[in-house]
């Protein structure tokens, strides 16, 4: 029986105190055991023969002593040849723990790499036709692998899958236990694992969603339109063109037209004048005679004198001011009295004005709404192209299907439609300029006429 010792109460407040007073021997023993196991291998996995020895000899039997002759020196040396030298024993692994990276430092054994000789031999054999079958097989295998790869690529184009078929809640990551119509969707989605939870896609822009991809055509663009519809279309196109012309005219007026035109001669004169300002003018007798009328100096702006007003003028001024003020006040008072009688009229005028304003406001709102519905999105610094009405030249209308001529580029129309819907930012394709390569002759390699002449003459001289 172990006597239970009365434990002393000790504080195990911090880590140090904890380590000091707690009994960790069992833990350490366990860890020691584990380390041993790692080094020596597990007892469980070892065969019994390794752990135990069968005691064949009895207790009483004498141990036979074989007389073994000591080996000769020569034999001893031979026996030692098989042993690993003591100096290399350090390099051998002593631990039983397996090498986690077995492939480390793999060195090809000698002879695995084709040497020059073996290559020669192989070549000779191939010429003899020994390898032919092997080569053919290899070729076939390669082709098979390629075909397989190509087929895997083509799977993309077969579309052999019902994409919208398996719309099960389980495919969304909702646990099976919660798939029931009585369980709210929120509760179902709440239980989806975070790894399977999809970030919902934010809603698309309004323009992308609401605007039609293929707009219904104006009836006038028919290949054989009725007269009225065609005229209607022409009207529309004309109006559009007029608007554009007006805009252009405005731009011209505001920019180019704003500046005065100057002829070349005028420009030169101006330049001369400007450049020669401040320089001493050449003597001009005509000018001199005019200025000669009065010799006295006169400033352009004569000096101001501080002339004081006297008392009388000041009083008069004050009186005038007061009188003005009084009259104004009187007028206002009168107005007040008359306004009382005018009340009804005022009211009605206010009412009409308010009505007018309300109507205008609603009109403005309506206009704004219509503009907003068709406004082109500004998604980049470039301007989104405006939709131009399809113009059909009456000369082009032959009325039969054979002679239809298209004047629009359908791809461009698609492209611009995407831009108008806000699916693409308007852009301008910048064409890459082809770099001009400048070619040089290396100084020493230059061959001039002179060199040729020289060469020719030398050759002639030789002959």
């Amino acid at each position: 029986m172990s006597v239970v010792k009365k434990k002393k109460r000790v504080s195990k407040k911090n880590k140090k105190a904890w380590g000091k007073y707690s009994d960790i021997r069992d833990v350490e023993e366990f860890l020691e055991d584990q380390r041993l196991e790692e080094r020596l291998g597990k007892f469980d996995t070892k065969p019994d023969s390794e752990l135990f020895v069968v005691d064949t000899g009895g207790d009483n039997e004498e141990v036979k002593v074989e007389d073994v002759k000591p080996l000769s020196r020569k034999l001893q040396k031979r026996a030692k040849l098989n042993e690993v030298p003591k100096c290399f024993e350090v390099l051998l692994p002593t631990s039983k723990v397996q090498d986690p990276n077995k492939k480390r430092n793999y060195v090809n054994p000698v002879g695995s790499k084709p040497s020059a000789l073996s290559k020669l031999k192989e070549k000779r054999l191939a010429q003899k036709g020994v390898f032919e079958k092997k080569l053919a097989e290899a070729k076939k295998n390669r082709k098979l692998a390629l075909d397989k790869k190509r087929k895997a690529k083509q799977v993309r184009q077969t579309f052999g899958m019902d994409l919208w078929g398996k719309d099960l809640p389980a495919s969304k990551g909702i646990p099976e236990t919660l798939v029931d119509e009585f369980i709210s969707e929120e509760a179902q989605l709440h239980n989806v694992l975070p790894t399977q939870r999809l970030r919902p896609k934010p809603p698309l822009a309004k323009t992308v969603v609401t605007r039609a991809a293929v707009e219904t055509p104006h009836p006038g663009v028919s290949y054989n339109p009725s007269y009225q519809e065609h005229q209607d279309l022409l009207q529309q196109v004309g109006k559009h063109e007029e608007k554009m012309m007006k805009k252009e005219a405005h731009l011209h007026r505001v920019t180019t037209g704003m500046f005065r035109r100057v002829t070349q001669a005028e420009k030169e004169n101006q330049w001369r004048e400007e450049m020669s300002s401040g320089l001493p003018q050449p003597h001009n007798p005509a000018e001199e005679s005019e200025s000669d009328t009065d010799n006295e100096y006169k400033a352009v702006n004569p000096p101001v004198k501080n002339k004081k007003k006297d008392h009388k003028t000041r009083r008069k001024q004050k009186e005038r001011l007061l009188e003005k003020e009084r009259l104004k006040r009187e007028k206002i008072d009168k107005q007040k009295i008359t306004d009382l009688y005018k009340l009804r009229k005022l009211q009605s005028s206010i009412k009409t004005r308010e009505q007018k304003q309300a109507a205008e406001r609603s009109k403005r709102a309506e206009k704004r709404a219509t503009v907003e519905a068709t406004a082109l999105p500004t998604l980049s610094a470039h301007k989104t192209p405006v939709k131009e009405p399809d113009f059909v030249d009456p000369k082009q209308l032959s009325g039969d299907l054979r002679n239809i001529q298209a004047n629009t580029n359908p791809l461009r129309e698609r492209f611009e439609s995407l831009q108008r819907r806000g699916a693409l930012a308007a852009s301008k394709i910048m064409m890459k300029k082809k770099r001009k390569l400048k070619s040089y002759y290396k100084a020493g390699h230059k061959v001039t006429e002179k060199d040729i002449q020289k060469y020719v003459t030398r050759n002639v001289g030789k002959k």
Partner: protein
Amino acid sequence: MVSKKKKKYSSGEGAQFMTRKAALKKLQLSLKDFRRICILKGIYPREPRNRKRAQKGAGGIKTLYHTKDIKFLLHEPIIWKLRELKVYQQKIRRARAMREYRNMKKYLRDYPDINIDHIVKERYPTFVDALRDLDDCLTLCFLFSTFPSLKKVPRDQSMLCRRLTVEFMHAVIAAKALRKVFVSIKGYYYQVELEGQTITWIVPHHFSFQPQNKDEVDFKIMSTFVEFYTMMLGFVNFKLYHSLNLVYPPKLTAAFTADDKELIDEHAYVAERIAAMNLSLARVEGSNEGEELPEIDIFNTEDDPQKLEEAKLEAEKIKKLKTMFKGLKFFINREVPREPLVFIIRCFGGEVSWDKDHFVGATFDESDESIAYHIVDRPTMDKQYLSRYYVQPQWVFDSVNARTLLPINNYLMGAVLPPHLSPFVDKTKDQVYIPPEERALNDPNFKPLDDDQSGSEIEEASDEDKEDEEEADSEEDGDAESALAKQYQQEVEEDSDSDEDEEGVDPEKKKLAKEKKKAMAVTAGVPHKEHPYQKEIEDKQAFRLREKLVRKKHRNLYKSMKAGQEKRKKEIWLLRKKRRLHDEKAKEEKKAEKRQKRQQALEQASA
């Protein structure tokens, strides 16, 4: 304590948006890859309410994206694929620069494909969503199917587009879903109705490919759009075929298999394409062909019985339209564009063929006697068969839009065609004046009031008296039956009277009995007669009462609507009246002229 100062633009609109450059940095992608993934995932740039704030105070106009959109992209597994592809691209680039073309070819061959079917599912969670967004897809695919291989477009793309579009057309043919056609200068507008969704697309006229200006369209971007759309169209086709009990992929002609590397010239290609459309597809075994839509059940959920009636009428019309050409054989002459006609005729159950010497895929000969219509686009023909009608192609388009087989007399060979009207006109804007000619075009049942008169003008002028006689005759004819009935009744009455007379013995008793009888007799019930005028008045009163119940909020709107209606009605009435007066005047003048002529002739004869 002073709280930490909030940084500017860390919340609100400044934090909501992100410039494209910032997005590129965040996603660690090149601009090219970013553009691609944006198109594939359907992420578009946004327009902010306040640009200055959204750009964090920077001036100018920058391309902005929602931060949430970019975060959404961040979760896409394809981004990793795009980054991995960079290695391949570098290898290819290097091989090209080193002129190791063998290696380059190998790398190009092994260039991995990105699988994007999960994106299709993500963008269109249901099949109907996908159908709803098919307009753009179809237009682009039909357009790309006419393209040769271009520099910035993958080689197999136009091929794939060709295949998918033909497959889709086959699905439309099998579903008999075509509703409207419009031939415009730009191309053919088609409208189909699939699963309750109307899909409209444009097929350009077949010209040979016109070279594009380099700086007009970014081919790379459009090709990326097409890459996504082909994926989508493929899956839509698969689903459509399965719902129609057809085998997918269908066995079309040889030109549509991808590994066929024979160089075929453009015309042969088009011919193959059309021939492929004239095939009938294999059905899934054990499925019955005739699947008819159930008739519309009548529920009184809708308040407006008129609407219900309209819907019923519409359904009936569509049912008729679906089998409009059933059992009819069409032969298309050489000069007529075949593709749209084959598609349309097959859509409504007709059989088509063409000159077998010129194009492949003809099913019957021109000499076949069972051909009902021969479609011609030339003024005369040398050899004509009596057993068929020679019509111009517009007859087919107009018949589809009118939803019945139109009378062919306006469309015969060499005739001046009536205008081809658009079926896409808004039906709600019906309060406009339509001249009687156009009304007759739209509605074959419509008969202008003076139609027969104008038709028999010549006869009428010659024998006016005869007409009067005829009228009298017709009156007599109409009255004959009623007269017979009257006679019969009179006879019966007389019989009964005579019976009573025979019985009568005591006049007083008789009188008494009569009085008693009168007291006892059940007076014959008077059937409740609905006074039409009275009813009209009542209806009007009820309508007015309902008008009174219009909410104050909507009253002005209602009033203005009513006023507009009245105005338009008046205008129409005025125009009709004008037309009538004009017509009458013209007729009278004509009559007068004729009379004068006759008189002159008589005078001449007498002289």
